């Protein structure tokens, strides 16, 4: 792939406004460039590949999608056909719709067919019972507080954050002081050269505060990340692809595998978006992330269940 220095800022901004499906991004030195999908996927033969799935909402059965298990299965099946076995999967929350044991069971069964290690963070729909005790019992082994943790893989530091508990009236997503203190400590002493991938359910940038699409104390978290040369923030919650770049930090939200939600402000509420049957599979999907260790570049490829 080419990495010339001649960045077309105007073209970049245009792309950043709305990232469509099937667009690949590569980030080098904090500067993102779009690149052909073929190139991004070709990179998977040599480099770290992991996948992101989000908002499976097992248990949802309303008009927007009456066969959620079917679309979740389709998302997992696509992951199974990737040319290279992903190193692992991230699930950025809302595994279930109502935190019911049967919903978690079915989600585990469907996601398990990928035969990948899965790193979870909870969505608000997963913490509805007993302050999240059932989520933590199932998915929170080795985590702290409400389920946050970090790990290293292939030289990349991954941080899973929880911003869906103890929310305050009038607010948005929230990390809280205890988690922020942990994050500061977790990052302290790490080389600024080490790539960082942060994943959490609700976006860590203010996508649309009017619908609560943001995290009220994310600025504090981002202040700890500022000194790192490459930071990628992967979120879900809004059931659509959006991307923003701020300095060395790239923010990216994934599609849901259950149902789409409207673009910010384009509907009366952020409730499930009902679309004609043929369109649904173009608005649902998963995300592939490719990390090229040798050059420090990272490509994010959104993969709808069906191409337009």
């Amino acid at each position, binding site marked *: 792939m080419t990495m010339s220095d001649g960045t077309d800022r105007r073209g970049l901004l245009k792309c950043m406004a709305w990232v469509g499906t099937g667009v690949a991004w590569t980030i080098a030195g904090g500067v993102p460039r779009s690149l052909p999908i073929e190139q991004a996927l070709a990179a998977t033969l040599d480099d770290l590949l992991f996948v992101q799935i989000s908002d499976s909402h097992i248990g949802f059965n309303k008009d927007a999608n009456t066969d959620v298990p079917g679309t979740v299965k389709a998302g997992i099946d696509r992951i199974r056909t990737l040319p290279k076995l992903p190193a692992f999967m991230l699930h950025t929350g809302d595994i279930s719709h*109502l935190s019911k044991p049967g919903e978690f069971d079915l989600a585990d069964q469907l996601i398990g067919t990928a035969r990948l290690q899965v790193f979870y963070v909870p969505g608000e729909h997963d913490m509805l019972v007993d302050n999240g005790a059932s989520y933590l019992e199932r998915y929170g082994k080795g985590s702290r507080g409400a389920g946050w943790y970090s790990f290293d893989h292939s030289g990349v530091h991954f941080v899973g954050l929880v911003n869906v508990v103890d929310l305050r*009236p*009038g607010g948005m997503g929230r990390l809280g002081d205890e988690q922020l203190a942990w994050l500061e400590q977790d990052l302290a002493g790490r080389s600024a050269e080490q790539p960082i991938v942060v994943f959490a359910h609700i976006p860590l940038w203010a996508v649309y*505060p009017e619908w609560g699409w943001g995290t009220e104390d994310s600025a504090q978290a981002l202040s700890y990340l500022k000194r790192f040369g490459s930071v990628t923030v992967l979120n879900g919650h809004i059931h659509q692809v959006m991307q923003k770049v701020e300095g060395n930090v790239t923010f990216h939200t994934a599609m849901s595998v259950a149902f789409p939600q409207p673009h910010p402000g384009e509907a009366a509420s952020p409730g499930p978006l009902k679309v004609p049957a043929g369109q649904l599979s173009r608005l649902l999907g998963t995300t592939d992330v490719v990390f090229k260790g040798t050059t420090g570049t990272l490509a994010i490829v959104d993969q709808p269940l069906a191409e337009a």
Partner: protein
Amino acid sequence: MRIAAFSILRLLLGLVPLALAGSPAALAADDGPTVAIGNFTFDPAKLSVPAGTTVTWVNQDDIPHTATNAAKLFGSPVLDTDDRFTFRFDQPGTYTYFCKLHPHMSGTIEVTPAAG
């Protein structure tokens, strides 16, 4: 009797937004007013009732919500579609509440002294 009449009036008033939303089935089981939860809003967002009134929340969205008082005087369980929650307000005062899942959603119940 005045309280009962007032409650019926409130009930009728409470029906107006429900009728507009095309969901006439969302009628409170009790003789108190209803707060409809729809489009990620509480409707009406501010409700004034005399002490002793039972208020019913009903979720008309495809997404679960709660009606939660931050001071923990009252708090609904998670309300899935068509689920209801009722609470009787005996003490005059102004009570704010929000949705624990979508905290940008907020509402107020103003409880006035019972008509004597």
